[in-house]
């Protein structure tokens, strides 16, 4: 007969963010332990509240299976010492040993050890101790008198009680002075006294009667529904928030959502600030009105069914939020009084990275890069936009030293855009300041408007260039400066806006600016170049002289790359790599990307992807598949014959077979077409030119023997195959294509 087992580990309040994982860990650890101890059971479920982790194992067997083991010992006539040793190791007496013939006439001693099944209770007791001492809390602590040594039990917060019931029987166990019992406590205030649990069967309902909802999913559902209803009753819509749901469910055993209000005057503060204050500091939900605007209401989740229906609780929470919001308003209004450009000098005191100067230095570089990106790539004819790009970049980091961002770092960019807007900056500039950190992740939106795109790309490319130059590229799983994410963002912006430029060239410019700054101590890059003009080596241009400056920087503080060419190469490879990852995720065949990348030297990502796209539709077409087959055949023959270009034959004196002549004609026609199409970046046309080769190639292989006994003919035909291979490879490296 099987029984259900109940375990409750009661402690002082477990941090909300740890409860879900702890619940899963408890079930997994217990399951692993029971399996290791060979105790059969049907299923395990687990629960967490702020004050308890609970586990129910269904269908626990009465005992582990019995087992019998035989161990061979010394011969019966062995010296007494050997026999005594065997007795010690088996725990048996001489009389209990069995003598058997070994087939050679010797009597050998055997120990037959019967391992009877172990009763479930003691297996469970040992599992409990094991799981408690091995529990993987992210942070744990010692407490109480036992903590006079550091060896005492660690738990997330002091462990207060253990319930361990198999069926209706107590499983006796003691861990770090806490003895198992059948008594727990209910809700801290509704039901502070002890509750005796009968078995796993009545645990959840007995606790519910004492104002504890054991199941976190049920508490979340109560909060979700209750908060929505509370908002609805006030004619508002709740802004749902999964994270808040979990957090509040982790802070309550008896959740009671309550709606409160705040002074409408606070709505002057940007809604993002209000929402963040409410969510982060107070764990409140916020609401929208019928027009979709943030309403002056919030939903808090109390942990008590208050005697006055929650009136006092709402009053208190309103007061706290009002104090928070007046603090936020104080920051907002104070910040508004100082123009962003007047804050920028403070950035000179913030070190961006010890090898990369200050944030002000970075701002200067980003300004140059954004200006040049706008002027040369995004909007070459529009001087006004270039000026806006430079202005937006110059102001972009000023909000880092405002009171509001000091309080809420996650509002960086956003606050800057509010302040810039209020201080008369153009919409483009404000948007650029707001969106400079976008996209923050794969699913995050891209920056809006040309100025925002210019600043965001410049900022990210500058970071990539700077950290690469200083010898700190991402490696393996380590990417402390989130450069991979930055590169992905740049790639997405380039594709979405069809921007045609070399990322490695612009990154190289940023790195050069950085070296000029580091070498001269001047923040302004032009001033830096000016200052270095008269120095030795004189700085009059690029190339070797800049490398010499870089060498100087390296001499002072090592670890930087040795040359700008090396940097550009590294950036090119990095972007190629990121692009492959990004395109793979977008479903593009990696062999096609490889086929285009293998052409080398390309970091105009738009052009590169256009080629990949054309290639993808070509190789999946009938013509493409056949051409690929013909190409592979040609390449294989060339490889097998170890063909190398020899003397160029004169067509006039060679009498070709019809299929051969037809192929030559087709190649004569297709080669210049494909070349011109590639030149014009019309990759569909390039593929169409290649497609025209398909039929002549097929006929050629059908009608003509390439490896002719006549050496001259053979040589000429192999030459033709090489032309096929080269014409195709000029468009993409088909040898990388699978299939």
């Amino acid at each position: 007969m099987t029984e259900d087992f109940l375990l409750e580990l009661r402690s002082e309040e477990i941090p909300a963010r740890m409860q879900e994982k702890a619940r899963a860990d408890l079930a997994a650890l217990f399951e692993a332990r029971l399996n290791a101890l060979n105790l059969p059971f049907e299923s395990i479920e687990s629960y967490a509240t702020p004050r308890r982790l609970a586990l129910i194992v269904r269908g626990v067997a009465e005992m582990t299976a019995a087992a019998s083991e035989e161990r061979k010992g010394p011969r019966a006539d062995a010296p007494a010492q050997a026999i005594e040793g065997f007795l010690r190791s088996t725990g048996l007496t001489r009389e209990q040993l069995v003598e058997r013939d070994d087939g050679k006439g010797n009597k050998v001693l055997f120990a037959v050890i019967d391992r009877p099944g172990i009763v479930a209770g003691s297996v469970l007791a040992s599992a409990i101790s094991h799981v408690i001492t091995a529990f993987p809390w992210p942070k744990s602590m010692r407490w109480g008198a036992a903590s006079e040594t550091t060896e005492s039990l660690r738990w997330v917060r002091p462990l207060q009680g253990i319930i361990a019931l198999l069926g209706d029987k107590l499983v006796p166990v003691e861990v770090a002075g806490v003895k198992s019992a059948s008594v727990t406590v209910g809700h801290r205030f509704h039901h502070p006294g002890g509750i005796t649990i009968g078995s796993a069967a009545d645990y959840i309902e007995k606790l519910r009667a004492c104002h504890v909802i054991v199941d976190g999913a049920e508490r979340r559902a109560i909060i979700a529904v209750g908060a929505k209803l509370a908002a609805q009753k006030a004619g508002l819509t709740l802004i749902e928030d999964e994270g808040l749901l979990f957090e509040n469910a982790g802070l309550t055993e008896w959740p009671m959502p309550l709606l409160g209000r705040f002074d409408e005057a606070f709505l002057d503060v940007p809604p993002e600030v209000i929402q963040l204050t409410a969510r982060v500091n107070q764990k409140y939900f916020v609401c929208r009105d019928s027009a979709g605007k943030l309403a002056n209401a919030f939903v808090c989740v109390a942990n008590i069914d208050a005697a006055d229906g929650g009136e006092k609780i709402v009053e208190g929470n309103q007061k706290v939020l009002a104090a928070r919001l007046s603090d936020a308003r104080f920051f907002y209004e104070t910040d508004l009084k100082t123009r962003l450009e007047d804050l920028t000098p403070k950035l000179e005191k913030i070190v961006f990275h010890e090898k990369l100067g200050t944030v002000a230095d970075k701002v200067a570089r980003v300004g140059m890069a954004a200006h040049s990106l706008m002027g040369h790539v995004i909007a070459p004819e529009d001087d006004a936009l270039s000026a806006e790009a430079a202005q937006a970049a110059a102001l972009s980091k000023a909000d880092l030293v405002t009171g509001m961002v000091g309080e809420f770092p996650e509002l960086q960019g956003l606050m800057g855009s509010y302040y810039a807007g209020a201080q008369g900056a153009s919409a483009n500039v404000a948007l650029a300041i707001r969106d400079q950190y976008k996209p923050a992740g794969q699913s995050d939106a891209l920056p809006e408007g040309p100025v925002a795109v210019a600043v965001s790309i410049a900022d990210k490319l500058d970071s990539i260039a700077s950290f690469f130059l200083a010898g700190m590229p991402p490696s393996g799983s380590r990417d402390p400066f989130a450069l991979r994410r930055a590169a992905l963002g740049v790639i997405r912006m380039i594709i979405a806006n069809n921007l045609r430029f070399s990322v490695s060239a612009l990154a190289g410019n940023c790195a050069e600016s950085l070296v000029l700054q580091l070498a001269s101590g001047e923040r302004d890059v032009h001033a830096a170049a000016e200052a270095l003009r008269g120095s030795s080596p004189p700085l009059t241009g690029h190339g070797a002289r800049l490398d010499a400056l870089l060498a100087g920087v390296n001499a002072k503080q090592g670890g930087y790359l040795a040359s700008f060419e090396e940097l550009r190469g590294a950036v090119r490879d990095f972007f190629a790599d990121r692009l492959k990852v990004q395109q793979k995720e977008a479903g593009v065949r990696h062999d096609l990307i490889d086929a285009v990348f293998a052409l080398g030297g390309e970091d105009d990502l738009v052009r590169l992807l256009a080629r990949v796209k054309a290639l993808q539709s070509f190789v999946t077409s009938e013509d493409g598949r056949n051409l690929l087959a013909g190409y592979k055949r040609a390449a294989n023959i060339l490889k097998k014959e170890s063909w190398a270009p020899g003397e160029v034959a004169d067509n006039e004196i060679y009498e070709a077979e019809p299929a051969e002549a037809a192929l030559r004609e087709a190649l004569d026609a297709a080669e210049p077409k494909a070349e011109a199409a590639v030149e014009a970046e019309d990759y569909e046309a390039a593929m169409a030119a290649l497609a025209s080769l398909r039929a002549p190639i097929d006929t050629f292989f059908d009608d003509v023997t390439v490896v002719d006994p006549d050496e001259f003919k053979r040589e000429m035909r192999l030459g033709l195959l090489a032309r096929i291979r080269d014409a195709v490879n000029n468009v993409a490296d088909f040898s990388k294509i699978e299939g």
Partner: protein
Amino acid sequence: MAEPLSFQRMILTLHDYWAEKGCVILQPYDMRMGAGTFHPATTLRALGPEPWNAAFVQPCRRPTDGRYGENPNRLQHYYQYQVILKPSPPDLQNLYLGSLAAIGIDFTRHDIRFVEDDWESPTLGAWGLGWEVWCDGMEVTQFTYFQQMGGFDCKPVAGELTYGLERLAMYIQNKDSVYDLAFNDQGVTYGDVFLENEKQMSKYNFEVADTETLFEGFRKAVAECENCLNNNVPIAAYEQAIEASHLFNLLQARGVISVAERQAYIGRVRDLAKGSCEAWIQHMTPSWQAKYPEWTI
């Protein structure tokens, strides 16, 4: 419902409550400090094996929080009520809740929550796990189980309760401004006692304090701390760490410490505090081990 407690009555009630629970009731330490945790009765006594139960009010100075008396919640000088119980008793949460009930908080009408808040003091080289205790969404107490102090494991662990007295009083008295709090039952308000102080001291902290004098004071405190350590008077050394910490706070309020320097200053104060704790442990270990032979650092 009974009249809510005045500010001073609330303090007296807490004194009575914790005295009855076996705490020694200390008076404030006579030095300027940023938090009750700096009081040697917390910092130094958290180390070593001897039981220690104490409660006291500690005035706290947070120069950068000054608002010239214009903000109803922010003060550069305010009071903390500090309780330290070593080893932490098994029913510490209930003892604490008993103190809230004693000062008039009705658990049937208010929402008390223990919200994760791990405490760390970089200047003291100390950390602990615990909560901020919320009453209807307002943080009224910091509740910490000290794990390390001055870089040393606490053996045994002490429980520390830090009540924000002004906040709690505003709550109990239902006042929106700290300055409107009833200080006593005879009509004296918190503003009567401290408003002028806030105005003048905010001005001093932000505008007047002579930075050269402060820098000089910081250097002298560092030197004096070393002098004390060399002469094996760790309590006196620790006082200099307190002094240096406060001068650093003032220099911050004057805005003369750059972001880059900030960490270096914090590091120096931490070195003083850690050095004092280490010296304290070494000084006390013979007598601790005489009484608790099992105990080791």
